[in-house]
């Protein structure tokens, strides 16, 4: 599959073009002024644009010359220009990379390659490089800045996590302590589409949010789209998180391993032939031998959690091959699983485990220098089990979603247009709640488990059109036909039943997802950008637990469950200050309807209830302003991201129809990340995070019944958990042991001032009614206090 292309218009460089900008798109297209200039003797300059450090080709980079010529790099990074002889200033820009300025003396035809450095925050698209940039590899033609954002965020227990790095950027809220959710612009985590090498990952986190499923060693880059969603994606109301492994065909063996108190991981990249390389990465935690026994010995038995056990492992495999001159075949596999258990009060043990699997096979065909075809087949599977055991009474719920996905995209690179068109088919298979109870050998009979089938067939087309050097437009459209398919028994209002046969259509609907982005440069280093997109989400994540444990399950749209619909407008001002600083202010407004709340808790799922009969529907809106300032150069680097936002919900059956704050409504969200590189060996980084506490429903009164004290709850989500804040620090020492080996020792401290950020608040009564002395207190369950750790990483690269 091709490299991702930004939603927004690429950051065009200045060119002296007289532009007559009118407020009509039609006129914009017509007024495509061209700057004619007299030319001296012309030579051909061609070559390739690559990513610094990984040598991946960069498609769609804009190459402009001081004499006014410009072109874009193709999917394989290739570009070609005819320019006058003599000294030429060349500028290469791409939304996701630092701009490169260079000068070339041309006395004849010349071929030259350029390397660009990934940047972290651009306009709508954010790239996080998960690989170290290697400053020593700088080519004389590259004037770039080493700016590896991931390294600047202090790693939790030595584990770098690309998703955690993304969460330090504005508009991408954290769910709070112990919460793995990713909340973009007031939406829920189930409204994001997370794809790993083109396969959907339905639950992208390991437990408690301290790790995402993406092992940084196996990740090459991540694109986050917050607004103006590109038309090759669809079916979600909020962000697209596109995670990709490297597509580079390795030419030498490299290995990497790290170990800390929590986990160990190892990776290997090796060429098989000249045109084929494979890589594998494995990670495993061993907290059941370190953290949890220590914890159990330190806590009292009256805690809400006792005898915790939890571990996870994951495995990545990639194969990159070149087939002939113009075909590439990529295979990627991910499989990971978690196993969590604890004893609650009253001798009941709880357990949950879940597994994500994602496999994808992509054939990339370079039809010509301007036309590239990507065909991808992928498979995703997410399984989840929740169990509760009390001696011989065992109750459980299993949940599963399985997808088969095919996508074909044709990329056409023209002089001023970048056109993408394609088709996609997704087949979903849902088993949201399969209950089981076994009591002393007797299995409870729950009948046939709820099973649902649905599919989506889409066609999409988009054009990224450079109207002038200062003005660009992206317009795209995606049309999808959604079907809920049989077998299914539809129960009508008069209780009559209609049986649908396998593969027959129970319900279908068509929807359009338009996307538009306009970009206008004001000066050389500032621009404004407006984007709009309307999205429709035909599958739903239903939330059932009190905190964001992964017990939430997926459901398709049915006759009685409409699709979620959302529209977003976004307007931003982007400005660079010299080479050192970049900044932006971005405002958004989002409107959503068809939002879903489940009316029961997880316990009501231990029943074969029809989920569609236990849902309530509502609307929501979210708006906010994001501010970002980043210092890119010097020994001291870092960024500040701040979001001021509001997210509301209105449900007819909740809170008497009154509007209430969304659970993850954040008035303030602030992240400060800084890094001080004393020299090539020592670096120090620190981060501060602050977020308004989650909304929750608090008891307002109580009563006595059967000798118990029972809480009565007040207005929905009317109370706030305490604010979330935390400082992390880390100190890293890098050393190069010899030509092949390098190592990295880091000492990090999580939550340095030992803030007890609660994951959950409950109200507990203690005392005796007979003695007429009872105290009731809110109790908050906090997770991790100050947590120092040491980790060691060893890197090996085969000499050439």
């Amino acid at each position, binding site marked *: 599959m091709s490299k991702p292309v930004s939603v927004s218009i690429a950051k065009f460089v200045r060119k002296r073009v007289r532009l007559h900008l009118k407020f009509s798109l039609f006129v914009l297209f017509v007024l495509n002024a061209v700057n004619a200039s007299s030319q001296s003797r012309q030579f051909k300059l061609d070559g390739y644009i690559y990513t610094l450090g990984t040598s991946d080709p960069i498609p769609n980079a804009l190459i402009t010359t001081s004499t006014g010529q410009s072109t874009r790099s193709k999917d394989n990074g290739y570009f070609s220009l005819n320019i006058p002889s003599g000294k030429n200033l060349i500028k290469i820009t791409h939304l996701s990379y630092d701009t490169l300025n260079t000068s070339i003396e041309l006395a004849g035809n010349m071929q030259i390659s350029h390397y660009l450095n990934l940047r972290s925050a651009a306009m709508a698209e954010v790239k996080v490089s998960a690989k170290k940039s290697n400053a020593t590899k700088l080519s004389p033609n590259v004037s770039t800045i080493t700016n590896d954002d991931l390294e600047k965020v202090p790693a939790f227990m*030595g584990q770098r996590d690309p998703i955690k790095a993304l969460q330090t950027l504005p508009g991408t809220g954290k769910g709070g302590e112990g919460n793995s959710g990713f909340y973009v612009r007031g939406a829920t985590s189930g409204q994001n589409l997370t794809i790993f090498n083109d396969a959907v990952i339905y639950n992208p986190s390991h437990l408690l949010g301290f790790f995402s499923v993406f092992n940084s060693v196996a990740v090459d880059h991540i694109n986050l789209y917050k607004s103006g969603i590109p038309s090759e994606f669809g079916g979600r109301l909020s962000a697209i998180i596109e995670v990709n492994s490297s597509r580079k065909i390795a030419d030498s063996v490299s290995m990497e391993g790290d*170990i800390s*108190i929590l986990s160990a991981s190892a990776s290997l990249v090796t060429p098989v032939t000249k045109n084929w390389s494979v890589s594998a990465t494995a990670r495993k935690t061993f907290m059941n031998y370190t*953290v949890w026994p220590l*914890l159990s010995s*330190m*806590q009292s038995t*009256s*805690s*809400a*959690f006792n005898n915790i056990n939890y571990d996870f492992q994951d495995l990545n495999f990639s194969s990159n091959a070149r087939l002939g001159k113009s075909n590439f075949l990529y295979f990627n596999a991910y499989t990971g699983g978690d196993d969590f258990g604890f004893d609650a*009060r*009253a*001798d*009941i043990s*709880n357990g949950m485990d879940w597994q994500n699997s994602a496999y994808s096979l992509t054939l990339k065909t370079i039809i010509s220098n301007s036309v590239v075809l990507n065909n991808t087949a992928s498979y995703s599977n997410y399984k989840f089990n929740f169990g509760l055991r*009390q*001696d011989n009474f065992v109750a459980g719920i299993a949940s599963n979603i399985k997808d088969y996905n095919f996508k074909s995209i044709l990329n056409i690179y023209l002089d001023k247009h970048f056109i993408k068109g394609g088709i996609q088919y997704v087949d979903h298979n849902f088993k949201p709640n399969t209950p089981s109870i076994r*009591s*002393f*050998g*007797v299995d409870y*009979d729950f009948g046939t488990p709820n099973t649902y089938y649905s599919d989506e067939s889409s066609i999409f087309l988009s054009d990224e059109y450079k109207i002038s050097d200062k003005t660009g437009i992206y317009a795209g459209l995606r049309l999808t036909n959604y079907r809920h398919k049989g077998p299914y028994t539809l129960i009508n209002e008069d209780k009559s039943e209609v049986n649908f046969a396998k593969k027959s259509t129970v319900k279908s609907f068509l929807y359009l997802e338009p996307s538009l982005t306009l970009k206008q440069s004001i000066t050389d280093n500032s621009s404004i950008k407006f984007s709009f997109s309307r999205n429709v989400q035909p599958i739903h994540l239903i939330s059932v*637990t*009190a*905190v964001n444990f992964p017990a939430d399950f997926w459901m398709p749209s049915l006759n009685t469950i409409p699709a979620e619909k959302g529209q977003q407008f976004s307007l931003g001002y982007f400005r660079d200050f010299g080479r050192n600083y970049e900044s932006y202010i971005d405002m958004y407004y989002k409107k959503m309807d068809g939002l879903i709340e489940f009316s029961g*808790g997880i316990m009501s799922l231990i029943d074969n209830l029809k989920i569609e009969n236990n849902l309530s529907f509502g609307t929501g809106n979210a708006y906010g302003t994001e501010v970002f300032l980043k210092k890119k150069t010097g020994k001291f680097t870092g960024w500040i991201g701040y979001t001021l936002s509001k997210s509301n919900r209105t449900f007819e059956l909740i809170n008497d129809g009154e509007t209430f704050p969304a659970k993850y409504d954040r008035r303030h969200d602030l992240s400060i990340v800084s890094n001080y590189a004393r020299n090539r060996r020592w670096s120090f980084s620190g981060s501060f995070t602050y977020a308004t506490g989650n909304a929750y429903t*608090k008891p*307002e*009164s109580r*009563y006595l*019944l059967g*000798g*118990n*004290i*029972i*809480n*009565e709850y007040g*207005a929905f989500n009317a109370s706030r958990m305490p604010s979330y804040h935390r400082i992390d620090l880390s100190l890293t020492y890098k050393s190069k*042991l*010899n030509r092949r*080996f390098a*190592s990295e020792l880091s000492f990090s401290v999580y939550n340095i001032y030992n803030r*007890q950020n609660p*994951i959950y608040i*409950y109200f507990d009564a203690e005392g005796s*009614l007979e003695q007429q*002395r*009872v105290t009731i*207190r809110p*109790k*908050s*369950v*906090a997770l991790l*206090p100050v*947590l120092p*750790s*040491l980790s*060691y990483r*060893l890197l090996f690269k085969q000499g050439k």
Partner: protein
Amino acid sequence: MKLIRNLIGLMLLFVVFGCQKEDPKSLGGYNPKFVVEGWIEENDYPNVILSHNLPFFTAVDSAQLSEVVIRWAKVTVSDGVNSEILTVKRDNNYFPPYIYRGSELKGQSGKTYTLKIEYAGNTLTSTTTIPPRAALDSIWFLSKGDDNKQAQLFVKFKDNPNERNFYKLYTKTSTEKRFIPTLLSNQNDKYFNGKELTIQANRGPVNNLTVKNDPYFEKGETVLVKFSGIPQEGFDFWSNFQDEVMNSSNPLIGSTGKIKSNIEGPGVGIWCGYGSTIYQIKANP
């Protein structure tokens, strides 16, 4: 390679899983309600405990607790033909220690009973039915606990395949004043209709004011086991009630904040008919 030998991280880790106190804040929107706990057993007189709810963050002292009880209401129970006004009596086995009790109208299996409570211009009503009497086939104990010094209760019964049944299981020892529901005490035959079911019963906590709970009995102790048939409204209420009492502190489960009451009017609680059998047995494995 030299440093490789020096590797392997050291381990500094302090993990504390803690609970922290918080300052109570506002009283919020307290909405006064009556609280009803009423029951009518087969072949026994009706009983009703009536109180009102309390704002959340007021201190609970003896004055508050003695004030929650409502002693002067008119409580009437009717079977459709006959009705009786219950009279209030002090009974220290309950809390609040005042109970409205009948002395004429006895519960009969299959009959429907209406409860009407009138107090200070308010009227609460509810109806319930006494289901068929539930009975156990066998009761036994197995050695459990530390060094097998204690005993665990097991019961077995066969569900009637031709009826919709709901069950509730309780125990009581000489130190307890009331029958205490076992840990997972409510059963719905939707999932085991017509089958024989064995329940490995754990003693439930006396109430939710203590986290201490011993699931076993002392060997040789005399145990009263009560097995009741309850109507659907009773099952719905007691299942929700059990979830709230047992699981609201569990972050996986939390509180749904909904207890399905069958009281109509400005009140919460339950009016429930029971068809029970009580067994006395020594906890001898």
